């Protein structure tokens, strides 16, 4: 089963996603795929904050800032719940880490295919993504390509997902839920 969790910065999406992943895991192994590169003091502080949030919840952390499917090589076989946080870092790493920025299409494919492979292999996949679409600012060409890639990725992931949840001021709002989807299929 796959769940996509969306939210803006400071929306409470991480705390919600962690608790949700834990509630799904019911004793199985639970992995946390971390995508943020630990460059600089602020990134260090953000990572530390997230570690504190997760501590005591039983997560096994795998650092996988790019080529996300490779995280599978570091997981044990058997039932597992996987929380991936977050698509906005992963897409930014894929796009901007080479000598030259990669194009929108290449980033979209890399991320969407990677997530599709994870989804095949794990019992529960919970993916956190970011709403980066509503600040009304026109950025430089590369950043606009990044935003478009993020839009396409989110669209693809929400189609793949069994449920989609938007977290607003810490409150989960159902965008797509399992029950209504299975009702649609029966019709």
């Amino acid at each position, binding site marked *: 089963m796959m769940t996509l969790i969306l*939210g*803006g*910065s*400071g*929306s*409470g999406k991480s705390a919600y996603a962690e608790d949700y992943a834990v509630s799904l895991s019911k004793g199985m192994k639970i992995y946390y795929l971390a995508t943020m590169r630990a460059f600089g003091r*602020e990134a260090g502080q953000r990572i530390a904050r997230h570690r504190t949030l997760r501590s005591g919840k039983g997560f096994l952390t795998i650092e996988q800032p790019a080529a996300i499917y490779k995280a599978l090589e570091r997981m044990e076989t058997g039932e597992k719940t996987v929380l991936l946080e977050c698509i906005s870092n992963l897409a930014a790493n894929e796009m901007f880490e080479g000598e030259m920025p990669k194009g929108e299409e290449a980033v979209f494919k890399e991320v969407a295919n990677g997530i599709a492979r994870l989804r095949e292999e794990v019992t529960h996949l919970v993916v956190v993504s970011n*709403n*980066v*679409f*509503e*600040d*009304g*600012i026109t*950025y430089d060409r590369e*950043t606009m390509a*990044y*935003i478009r890639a993020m839009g396409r990725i989110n669209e693809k992931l929400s189609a793949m997902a069994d449920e989609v949840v938007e977290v*607003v*001021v*810490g*409150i989960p*709002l159902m965008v797509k839920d399992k029950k209504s989807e299975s009702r649609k299929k029966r019709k």
Partner: protein
Amino acid sequence: MKLIIGGYAQGKLKYAIEKYGLDLRLVWDGELPGDGEIRNAETEFVKERASDGNNINAKGVKMKNSIIAVNHFHNWIKRSLSEGGCPEEEISRFLDRYQSCIIISDEIGNGIIPVEKFEREYRERTGRILVKLAGQAEEVERVICGIGQKIK
């Protein structure tokens, strides 16, 4: 306390005025009023209402009580941070005293992470303050295109 959130220019204040019969004399814009200010405004308000001889405000909504509201709450957070204040503590003290107020704030976290450190911190802390207020609020409404959705 009731919390009303939504994007820029979504009609949040108008929604609150129409739904709760707010009177603009008791709505503060981008600031947290002190006790003295609130007392003065309330005294003025009651006096004027009595002299009007009716309980109707500009929008034609019947006034039941005088509700205190803070509009553009995010602007207050930004100013507090820029002055080196601690908005988390200040709002918590304010809500201890005015438990039945309405807080109206823009949602500002749905975009690209800003390059400037201050802007990043402002977004992050505003988001976390709103999460905390939503947790305490008796009701949370999200306004989009002038329409309010009750989300708590």
